[in-house]
């Protein structure tokens, strides 16, 4: 079901990449998983997940871009945890597929820790998990998300359950 049809997925893509994407055939696996929201938003604790390639400078290693440079069909499937209180100057980004200047100015465009803390303070949502998670969006060519599905996303889900999270906002790049 689609509500409104105003967003053009290809608007900001160079023509050659758009054509490439449009040649990819894929059908969803049914049924689509579904966890109904069982409480009002004001009572939900949120977890944040992005594929921006974020990491904590000086705490965690960057994503493995060196291997991607020598093996362009491979992308690092691992993840990094990011504290909700991260300061802009503690943020590192590894991503070879987007310009990272703007997220280095304001993490909230991809991992909205400050906006969600404001929503908690206003009482719009119930809480924000202490830890958010960042993956790096490029998963090889052709993309292979097997390790995300079988290993890393279940680890993130377990961690969210331990933190009492009900809902997750995902922000791909």
């Amino acid at each position: 079901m689609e509500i409104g049809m105003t967003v053009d997925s290809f608007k900001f893509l160079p023509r050659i990449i758009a054509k490439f994407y449009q040649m990819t055939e894929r059908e969803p696996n049914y049924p689509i998983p579904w966890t109904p929201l069982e409480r009002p938003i004001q009572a939900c604790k949120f977890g944040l997940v992005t594929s921006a390639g974020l990491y904590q400078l000086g705490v965690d290693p960057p994503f493995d871009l060196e291997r991607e440079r020598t093996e362009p069909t491979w992308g690092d499937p691992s993840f990094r945890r990011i504290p909700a209180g991260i300061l802009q100057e503690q943020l590192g980004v590894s991503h070879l597929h987007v310009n990272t200047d703007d997220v280095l100015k304001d993490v909230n465009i991809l991992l909205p820790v400050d906006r969600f803390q404001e929503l908690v303070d206003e009482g719009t949502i119930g809480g924000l998990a202490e830890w958010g998670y960042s993956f790096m969006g490029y998963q090889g060519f052709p993309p292979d998300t097997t390790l995300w599905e079988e290993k890393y996303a279940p680890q993130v889900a377990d961690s969210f359950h331990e933190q009492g999270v009900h809902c997750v906002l995902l922000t791909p790049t």
Partner: protein
Amino acid sequence: MARTLEAANLSTVLVTMMPYWSKKVGVPRTLAVEFPFGHTLGAPHNVPQQKRVILEALSVLAEAPEPGVIVHSKENWNQPIEDAIQSWQPKEPSPIIAELTPKFRDMMRQHRAEKKP
């Protein structure tokens, strides 16, 4: 990712500039935004815009009537299109793009040549 988390008893909402993929993959709940890549929730330091997008995503989460719902946001990107296409891209092409672009151009050329009578 969204599907795996949703299957693990978490209610998810995904914000993306590519609802095209949401539809193909079967993402549980999507808010589509017409923003350049790398700017999923808006422009840096544009707090009101980021907040509007997040509140829209929360509405999708709260009100989605069925799995696979995609709601299109009416938010606009305030930058000339040509500049926006350039500025989100990395300063150097990614390794895979550098490798594939010449091959893809050849394929397109060949495809066009075959179509000519």
